């Protein structure tokens, strides 16, 4: 037996040992069945809320978006910044350069290290960052999620841009108007597990069962992974695979822009209708050149603004995240905390060539 073979024996043993160490952390076979999924420390209504508590100055409020290079979040974070300045707090925006949950975790750790009062984040993964958030909470930070949520027990408030129902209703209505209430349509979504996308798609399917939409047929859902080129290619694919396609719904800013760009440069321009959720700046030219009649979106700036206020309210103790509590969000007025600590921004705005120039984001 040669020594370097022996060497690898050593290596192998080492690996085996390490494997044991890892698996020895639970005794006996742990299977999906017998592992009762014990929910993490539930946080609901810790202590009573005091509606007229004052928001103290100098609150340290940090925004942690999915990634710092995403224009959408730049806009909403700036909204947050406005709010924080209004309440004379300290605003900070940090975040990973690529949208990965693991790097978000290390940022959350850092923030709780820095003793933030409020962490406002948009989760890259509903579960991956839970542990870190709970640790931060334990360290005294208030947690607000916006745009995409984590598991409810990991945060106090989720600021939802709009109710899923609202989106679904709005999107289906728009496309149905544009294609004259009949024909094949497809959905170009972001990624297959974007927390909100799937919910919306489900509800859109329900909407389509309504009698007035009976003549509309949803042929497929394609995924552009929120990647411009991929969405572009997927749009090509859709149009080639479904000759009779009349309309596309793309409830994601990246997707709708890519699809619009493809249509505007192709023979289908104007013939195949497109709507979805997009930012006015991205869609402006396509609305003007007639590729797109109308699309919708909430105002991301308001979203951030509201999230910041929610956080401040939590920190001040005006609310605790329990259902029914009320708080005032500056210029946006009063909001009520819904079930599971969800706060809804409001119905989406519809943009068309008449109003689009009034918006700049």
């Amino acid at each position, binding site marked *: 037996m*040669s*020594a*370097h073979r*022996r*060497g690898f024996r*050593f290596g192998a043993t080492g690996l085996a040992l390490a494997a044991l160490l890892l698996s020895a952390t639970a005794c006996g076979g742990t299977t999906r069945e017998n592992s009762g999924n014990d929910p993490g420390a539930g946080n609901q209504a810790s202590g009573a809320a005091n509606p007229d508590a004052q928001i103290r100055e100098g609150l340290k409020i940090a925004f942690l978006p999915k990634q710092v290079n995403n224009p959408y979040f730049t806009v909403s974070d700036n909204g947050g910044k406005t709010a924080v300045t209004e309440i004379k707090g300290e605003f900070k925006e940090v975040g990973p350069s690529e949208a990965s949950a693991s790097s978000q975790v290390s940022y959350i750790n850092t923030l709780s290290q820095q003793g933030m009062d409020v962490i406002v984040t948009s989760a890259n993964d509903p579960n991956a960052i839970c542990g870190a958030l709970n640790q931060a909470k334990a360290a005294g930070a208030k947690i607000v999620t916006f745009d995409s949520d984590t598991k409810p027990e990991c945060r106090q408030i989720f600021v939802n841009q709009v109710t899923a129902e609202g989106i679904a209703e709005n999107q289906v209505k728009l496309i149905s108007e544009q294609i004259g209430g009949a024909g094949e349509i497809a959905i170009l979504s972001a990624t297959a597990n974007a927390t909100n996308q799937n919910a919306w798609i489900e509800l859109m399917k329900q909407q389509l069962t309504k009698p007035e939409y009976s003549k509309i047929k949803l042929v497929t859902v394609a995924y552009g992974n929120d990647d411009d080129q991929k969405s572009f290619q997927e749009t090509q694919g859709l149009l080639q695979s479904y000759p009779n396609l009349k309309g596309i719904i793309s409830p994601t800013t990246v997707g709708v822009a890519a699809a619009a760009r493809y249509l505007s440069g192709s023979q289908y321009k104007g013939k195949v209708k497109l709507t979805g959720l997009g930012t006015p700046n991205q869609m402006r030219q396509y609305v003007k050149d007639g590729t797109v009649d109308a699309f919708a979106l909430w105002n991301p700036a308001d979203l951030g603004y509201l999230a910041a206020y929610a956080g401040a309210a939590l920190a001040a103790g005006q609310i605790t995240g329990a259902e029914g509590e009320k708080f005032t969000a500056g210029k946006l007025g009063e909001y009520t905390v819904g079930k599971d600590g969800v706060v809804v921004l409001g119905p989406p705005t519809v943009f068309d060539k008449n109003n689009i120039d009034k918006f700049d984001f």
Partner: protein
Amino acid sequence: MSPEAPGADNAPLLVLDGVTKSFGAVAALRGVHLALHPGEAHALVGENGAGKSTLVKTLAGAHTPDTGRMALDGRPLELRGPADARAAGIAVIYQEPTLFPDLSVAENIFMGRQPLRGLRRIDTTAMNRDAERLFERLGVRIDPTRPARGLSIADQQLVEIAKALSFDARILVMDEPTAALSGVEVERLFGVARSLCERGAAVLFISHRFDEVFDLCQRITVLRDGAWVSTDRTADLTVDEVVRRMVGRDVSSLYPKQDAPVRGTLLEVSGLSRAGVFSDVSFTVRGGEIVALAGLVGAGRSEVARAVFGVDRYDAGEVRVAGRPLPPGSPRRAIAAGLALVPEDRRQQGLVMELSVERNATLARRRALSRLGLLIGGAERAEAQRWTRRLQVKASRLTAPVGTLSGGNQQKVVLAKWLATEPRILIIDEPTRGIDVGTKAEVHRLLSELANEGLAILMISSELPEVLGMADRVLVMHEGRVVRELSRAEADETSVMLAATGQGATA
């Protein structure tokens, strides 16, 4: 200082004066003088590490001298790089061919000087035609359009020569070009060299083969330890005299193999075959004897050695060590069975140049030296010291990279490495290739000592005198087969040569 060159009426073409060059601490050249006259073939001889290759590289522009001056036609010459050297009309044929395997033979010859047509585009047709012309001039046939990859060493060497010819140089430097060439090709090469001389060019010829040196050159310059020793007319010199100057002392009996008591058979090779390389090779080597494997370059001798040792696999046949069959294809098993192979190519196969003398010397024994699979420092150091002492390796310290040693000492380290494994059978491929005369003698003495100690030694050598001097028996290979076995008595230049060239073979 330097005596009359043939027709010293003409001024020297190229002059080197007091050229020194050192790498780090090592001084490779110290104040070398050299004068090449038009029309002369000038030999440069010296032990390995005497600085010949460095001098060549300096002429080629690959090295710039630290001090000293060079002059061409009396005008000072400064070479900033190989390009300058070419421009100055200096062509160099290197020891190892330096070809581009992926490019066609023709491009290899004309790289950087391809014939052009309109818009400075390369004229491939013309290029291939010119290449053919060159080969005709050399009297060989190589397809100019084929890639250089896969050319035999000799063919590669020929391409190199064609390259050197292609820009008819005023100064042709040949650094041991004949190593791999057949006699016919050597003759043809010399023919070309002479014709160049007639046209007023100068040839600088470096070789360890005195027969060729004396055959071609009018003058001989001897270097020792990087310093100029002498320059004389060939006519005024004898081989012994040249050797004496190279070594700086008298070299007593070069080949001292004493007869040793022959013991039982240790290595037994039967019916060994490898498609296209060698076939049905059978022989035995007994303890205490040195068996020489003779033959032309490419006759398959080294290949047999590699196969026996397990570096290469073989298709058929069997190898037995002391009666026990040796499983094929595993050097480790071979070593375990008591085999040792001192390979042909020191740099590539014998040593790990960047590693220390110590590590190299104990590399083959690293397993035996480890306790419970662990290697704790001392053992290796001790082992290395023991063997480097016995072989009188000259190294500043055992931790010095072996690459910094001279060729001879490197070869000693290789030997040390293998003797350290206390082998029963030593296969040694070209034991003295590229080694200075002094060390040669030492190596030979060592070999016969080892034989006396009862080792079975299989020696592969292209140096006929070495074969005749050292071997108890001579096995002659021709085109992959053992065509003849000669006892010490039978073996002489003619008998071996005949067998090796496949004439009057199979006794």
